[in-house]
């Protein structure tokens, strides 16, 4: 059975995880790899750039709401997979309406359904990219780490302090599940302000014992591509941004557990010192 690269992108809400995940999926697909992107966000907008403009998004929870999970047939499970551009397969978890239910439990259920159907470990895909909502607020959001789906975890950050706090928390979840073969591949810096002072980000990465794999600049091309429901690597294939994504995609594939470093969770006080300078 071929080796599946199981990549998980975590990060604070609004940091650009879906954008990074979609660009990576597109690059891998263009390289001829069979790609599955799984969006684990009740908003179900992770794969929107990979699907056709008029393609209706059908979430796992849409199906579960109509049919009990134990009664799902193979056809039901197959219908969860939406065909995207460049033959990228897309799955959106979906979730409850805001303010009700339990989205984390939904991710866990989706993970169980996909696991039982053999989608994750069935050997059909070369690359599976999980795009997971925000912080790891509960066990449900850590489902890919728990159920042996994930392998390499990458955390999207920006120069904003809140994103680094979130990254620190996520690295704690990675440490918690390290016995499942999970490891932190590195940080992906998606800049808000191209001229921002990044010293504190460097200090943070060093203290966390993680590499910053790529620095994605704030770019009009990315925004423009998104407005056209496209990925930057597709809309501007020869741009600087596309080159950065290509390099990142290569690094991610080449990232190995043996070469990865064990992250160090940073305590609250130490984190304050790192982010605000020694007080």
């Amino acid at each position, binding site marked *: 059975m071929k080796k599946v690269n199981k990549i998980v992108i975590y990060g604070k809400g609004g940091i650009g995880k879906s954008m990074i995940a979609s660009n990576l999926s597109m690059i891998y697909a263009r390289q001829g790899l069979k790609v599955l992107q799984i969006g684990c966000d009740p908003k179900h907008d992770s794969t929107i750039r990979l699907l056709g403009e008029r393609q209706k998004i059908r979430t796992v*929870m849409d199906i*579960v*709401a109509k049919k*009990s*999970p*134990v*009664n799902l047939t193979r056809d039901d499970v197959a219908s969860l997979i939406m065909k995207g551009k460049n033959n990228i397969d897309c799955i959106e978890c979906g*979730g*409850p*309406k805001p303010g*009700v*239910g*339990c*989205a984390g*439990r*939904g991710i866990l*259920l989706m993970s*169980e359904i996909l696991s*039982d159907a053999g989608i994750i470990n069935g050997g059909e895909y070369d690359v599976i990219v999980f795009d997971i909502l925000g912080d790891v607020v509960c066990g449900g959001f850590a489902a890919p780490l728990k159920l042996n789906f994930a392998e390499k975890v990458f955390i999207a950050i920006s120069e904003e302090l809140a994103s680094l706090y979130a990254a620190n928390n996520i690295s704690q979840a990675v440490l918690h599940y390290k016995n499942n073969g999970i490891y932190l591949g590195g940080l992906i810096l998606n800049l808000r302000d191209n001229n921002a002072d990044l010293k504190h980000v460097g200090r943070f990465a060093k203290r966390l014992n993680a590499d910053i794999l790529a620095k994605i600049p704030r770019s009009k091309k990315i925004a423009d591509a998104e407005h056209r429901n496209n990925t930057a690597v597709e809309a501007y294939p020869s741009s600087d941004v596309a080159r950065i994504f290509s390099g990142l995609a290569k690094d991610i594939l080449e990232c190995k557990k043996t070469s990865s470093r064990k992250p160090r969770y940073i305590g609250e006080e130490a984190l304050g010192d790192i982010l605000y300078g020694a007080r």
Partner: protein
Amino acid sequence: MARKQKTIPFEKQADDSKFKCGGVSAYSGRWFYDRSFACGDSTKDLFRKLMNLSPNSPVLLDALFWEHDFFKIRLFDRQAKEYFLAAVGHYQKDKKGLYEKYRCAALPNGFVILSRDGALKAEAEKTLSCLAGNLGRIKPHVLFDTAYNDRNSFLKKRSRPEDLPGKAPGNCGLFDEWGDSRVGHTFMFSRSLLDRITQVKLSGDKSMSLRCGDVECNNMYYPFNFFDSFFMFNTYGRYVPIAEHIFRNDRGQLDARIRSGRLFKDIISCYGAIELKNEDVILGGDEKIYNFLDKLTRERKGLPVFVLCSCISKVIGSDLDSLVKRINRKNGARIICDQNIGCAWGQELVLNLLSGYLSDEKSREGHGKRINLVGFEKDHALEELTGLLRSFFGIELNMVFLPEVDLRSLGSYYNARLQVLNPVEIYAKAYRRVFRKMGIGSVEPPAPYGMKRSTAWIRSIAGFFKTRADKNKSWKEYYNRKLARWDELVREARKFRLGLVVGDEDAALLVSPEKYPFGIPLLKCLEEMGFGLNILFTSSEGFEENKKRIMDLFEHKGRHKVELLNDKQGLEKWIAGEGGDCIYSDIREDARIMSSGKSSFSLFIFERGIEGAVRTLEELLRLCRVSFFKRYKEYGKLKPHPIAIE
């Protein structure tokens, strides 16, 4: 050609020297390893008897086995218990501990075993094959509870009945998941098993319950509702069914029939069991709860609806209060809702709901000498007691509330000025919490067993209304007459001794009977009756301490003996000899006692009230005097019999 069955010689079966002798255990009936329990029947015969006990109303064994070598039995039909235990006991000799984790229901046409752990299915099948053997009419049905999504469970593997070898869909010998798919549920309905189980529950006196272990959130888990009713309101063989289940039938329709039965004389409180599934947890269950309650309230046509919620609705933040308000406004309904995190144990929750209902009636004030009895099962002895209150003190019974609940008469609760709470501790805490805040006076006199306590019970109630019993001439005349008869019986009872064989765990029951559902102060009653007591402990564990605790109960310590004995031969000798004139046993016609020429007694003969105390003492004296067993003890000897195995 008939297949030759392999058998285990009785002698080998009886090689149970590694087990301590079972003993004649007060209350708990631990007969487990005593070979004499086999009653000379093969497993096959035992099961046949078990099934034949009540051909039209099945015997239900509602069982959870808790430890490898011990389980408690609470039942009404002692003969059924005897057979069942014997059968299990036989099997246990080979497969110790197998019954752990099983809930087992025996039905006339088969067995239903519910297991938490799907991985045990093979063992369950083997067990049933061995137990049920080739009995024509007993087919094993094994239904697995895999609601917890255990990784190794049946549900997780998404197995279907047809996936199992030799189990085609629709086959009666169904191995099935017992979870979300509801196949097991449909199975129960399709064979009218549910109705029959319900009959058993309601008839009460044919039911037995082996209950232990936790029930966790099964309380509110929909497919289990009809089994839960046994767990929740079942106390030492006396069902206290204060909640009726409203459930959907197999056509998905609400089934709001009110069943009638011994304790269901009138409409009792109901609670809606809303089937909140995994997907409802994820997506929110408010709409489903709303629709259910909406439909339920319309069907109930103005009758109140009590809703117990499990932790799920709380955890996922269902806004039940607002739902209930909306429905109450829309349908003019009366929904009383208790949202509870944790174990949704019925008794207290239902009490909370009822007190919620009653609190709306508070505007009225009680008048006259009227009382409510809370937690007293209605029987002739209770009628006699309340009759005494009425005829001698002018105290009227307003209503008996719990375990029976009549919603139609609940409105009159506040017509009483006094509520008399049953002091049995298992309920009393909840009663105190709920009823003492009702604004009605309350007393909690001792359980009215025996002459002294029954009199104290009456005096306590009369005292509340400032009616002094000692100044009531007609009462004094009645009391003195009964006391004279009582004293006469006590004088005779002093000539007899009664025997009790107890394990270390039974000591607590004997010392603090009010902590347990029967609540009969056995030792104190027997001493008051004048009997000398021989108490034999079969376990040395904590013996000295237990002995002291028991002796401290007695006023006339010199008349009673507490001893330790720990070998089977000694036990038999003790029963036959110094054990006393009559020996305690939960088992009717106990072979061990009969064959030693003695008669047996149990808690079942104890009656409440002054008249009841006299009748109880008369019955005990009759048992002590009876010479039947002495004359025919030779015929009560046990005969060994081989057990058929696969």
